[in-house]
């Protein structure tokens, strides 16, 4: 793989761009899905509306969204903001359904007993619902993370930075090595993000790990 060694700085530069252009949407998408998810569980009709809207966003093919957003946002097609907004919309759409499932999976009994103990709505969300929904949220976040890293490569068709450029350049010059490097690095990045998320999960949700141990007592069993 001589090409890789000769162009290591190019590839690393593209990798850093790729990290930036995927990490931001992943984090923003996750962050956005939390309030949206919470609102959706509290206001039933809003749940339907939100799901429908984001379902539509999710259904629109990425390249189409990259092209249409500039007209709506007033940016240029080659602007980075364009790609970031589109990727964040997708990440949010992907996370939202998962977030709703996650919040829905928290047992109603637990919530009621929390209220009975005097938790306010807000502190109940942060200290009871969110932590209990944690494992499911994390599982979804991992899926969203992998998908985002992979999807970003398409943005190269609208001139975006990132490892997708190795695909457009590789194709134009009929250079298989370059494309293979792109695929491998994207896979590595996806693995890296996933590992980071798993690690974060272990630190932030230590009880989830305990629950998976075969001889442990299931964590929450409200009778």
């Amino acid at each position, binding site marked *: 793989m001589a090409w890789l060694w000769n162009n290591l700085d190019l590839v690393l530069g593209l990798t850093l761009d790729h990290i930036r252009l995927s990490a931001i949407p992943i984090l923003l998408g996750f962050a956005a899905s939390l309030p949206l998810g919470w609102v959706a569980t509290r206001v039933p009709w809003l749940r339907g509306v939100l799901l429908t809207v984001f379902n539509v966003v999710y259904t629109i093919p990425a390249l189409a969204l990259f092209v249409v957003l500039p007209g709506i946002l007033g940016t240029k097609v080659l602007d980075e903001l364009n790609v970031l907004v589109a990727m964040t919309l997708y990440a949010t759409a992907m996370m939202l359904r998962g977030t709703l499932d996650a919040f829905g999976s928290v047992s109603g009994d637990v919530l009621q007993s929390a209220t009975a103990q005097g938790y306010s709505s807000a502190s109940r969300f942060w200290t009871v619902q969110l932590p209990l929904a944690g494992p499911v949220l994390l599982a979804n976040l991992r899926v969203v993370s992998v998908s985002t890293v992979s999807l970003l490569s398409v943005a190269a*068709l609208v001139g975006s930075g990132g490892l997708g450029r190795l695909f457009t350049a590789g194709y134009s010059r009929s250079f298989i090595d370059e494309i293979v490097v792109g695929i491998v690095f994207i896979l590595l990045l996806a693995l890296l993000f996933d590992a980071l998320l798993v690690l974060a999960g272990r630190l932030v949700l230590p009880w989830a790990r305990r629950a998976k141990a075969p001889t442990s007592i299931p964590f929450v069993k409200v009778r």
Partner: protein
Amino acid sequence: MNFIVDAIAFILDPANWAGETGVGARLSQHLFITFLSVLIAAAIAVPLGLLIGHTGRARGAIIGITGAARALPTFGVMTLFVLIGIQFGAGLSLTPVIVVLVVLAIPPLLAGSYSGVEAVDRQTVDAARAQGMTEWQILTQVELPLALPLLVGGLRSATLQVVATATIAAYVAQGGLGRYLIEGIQTRDYLRAVVGAVLVAALALLLDGLLAALQRLVVPRGVSRGSARTKRSSPGTATRSSGTLEATRTPVTEG
């Protein structure tokens, strides 16, 4: 917003539908590519998924493969296969594109099939067995009809993914609605690009809507959706049931 209005005007103008590079031709190319890929993928994935769901084996491996497949950048794999295809002397043909799209469509179809079978109430299966039905009869007359909603869900995901990714086929010298997008982007003709965007988005939404309706239609009479109480998989923790749903939910559509 003006561009979208202009794009719709372009699409509604019958003059733009005619000819080899008209909307009509490109739409049919796109549909052809999509249906061919999904059909081949279904022929491979559905029997396999039903078998996995019925016997309960190899499930872990399949989930692993599905997860790994999600990480593969389809754009990269497609350009790679096309370049490899050149080495075989046939020039730039449609075959590598179809291969990639089939590979892309297999995971959701596989997942839809096996999770559909898994979701069937174990007691129903036991009752069927107690009545003396053979394994084959159980699979085709009991599990399959009950599995249809999730199976069609998998079909829906697969179709969506393929329709979206087929737009990239336009970049590697094939036809389809993606041509408007690529032409628009490369010649900086924004209107043309938006025409492509609107067409692809509309097609995706249309197919998704049709398949969603189909998903509701195939629920066997007398069964309320999602009421499977005793799943064959281990008692559902939140993670696990989400995992089943995950199987049919797809990574974002590329293209």
